[in-house]
């Protein structure tokens, strides 16, 4: 796949991950754009990396962590993941739907490490091996973490539904 095709294939996944990771559409857009631009620069200077998606998500993860840390200095995590203030945008209206709101809130309640594993694997649709590498885990350890994360998220969703 050429550079243009690769960027367009990765863009929705990186953006979705960055929005989920930072809890903010605008911040997520910045993180996604910077990560993709880094891939463009690398591609034009040195050719395509061995794995474009691993390259992009490694950068996106670092930048999202930094952005999230900066945001946490101002807003508690619970508010970040439920933040819908300001003028309603089409994006805001979409994510404000009840079901999505519920999932976001449940995700925010599970442990950070479990949440990160699900964001990479399920939201960013990164492969198991790439996700494990990004988190510095073996594939088997990553699979165990994902299994645990899914159980916890499902339990949170069920509890929320019962209430």
């Amino acid at each position, binding site marked *: 796949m050429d*550079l*243009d095709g690769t*960027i*367009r294939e990765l*863009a*929705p996944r*990186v*953006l*979705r*991950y960055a*929005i*989920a990771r930072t809890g903010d*559409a605008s911040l*997520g*857009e910045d993180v*996604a*754009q910077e990560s*993709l*631009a*880094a*891939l*463009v*620069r690398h591609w*034009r*200077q040195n050719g395509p990396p061995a794995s474009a998606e691993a390259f992009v998500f490694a950068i996106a993860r670092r930048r999202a962590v930094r952005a999230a840390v900066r945001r946490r200095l101002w807003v508690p995590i619970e508010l970040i993941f439920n933040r819908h203030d300001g003028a309603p*945008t*089409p*994006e805001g209206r*979409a*994510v404000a739907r009840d*079901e*999505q709101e519920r*999932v*976001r809130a449940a*995700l925010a309640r599970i442990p950070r490490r479990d949440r990160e594993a*699900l*964001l990479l*694997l*399920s*939201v960013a*649709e990164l*492969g*198991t091996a790439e996700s494990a590498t990004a988190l510095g885990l073996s594939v088997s350890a990553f699979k165990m973490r994902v299994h645990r994360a*899914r159980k916890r*998220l*499902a339990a949170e*969703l069920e509890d929320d539904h019962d209430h």
Partner: protein
Amino acid sequence: MTTEPHGDLDRQLRDAFAPEPAAVARVADRALEEAPRRRASWPAIVGIGVTAAVALLAGVLAIRVSRPAGPEPAGADSPAAVEALDTRPGPALSGFFTGGALVVPVSDTDIVIIGAGERGERPPDGFGIVLVEGELR
């Protein structure tokens, strides 16, 4: 991953953070069009400098090689184009080319050399020694 039995949960997660299509297009376009090339500037400058230096050296070399070693000979068609020198003691003779023939005027007649021997159809240009052997007509 996204396959069953977790497919529904994964889909719920993706839907919860689904970006606006316009935002996706904007991110991709900006990444492709506006990717800053901070580290590309130095190699580019060095590349331009090396190219300029090579071009300058090549130009100087070409000028030196193409410059003649001695004075510029007269035009090939002019009478002074060729001097036929007699190797024997005596005055030098001058000749000229005309119609592919070397003509050397002597006191009563001309020496005409037609054709160019081993050097093809073109008679030799410039200065040198012409050895003539044969009958004078």
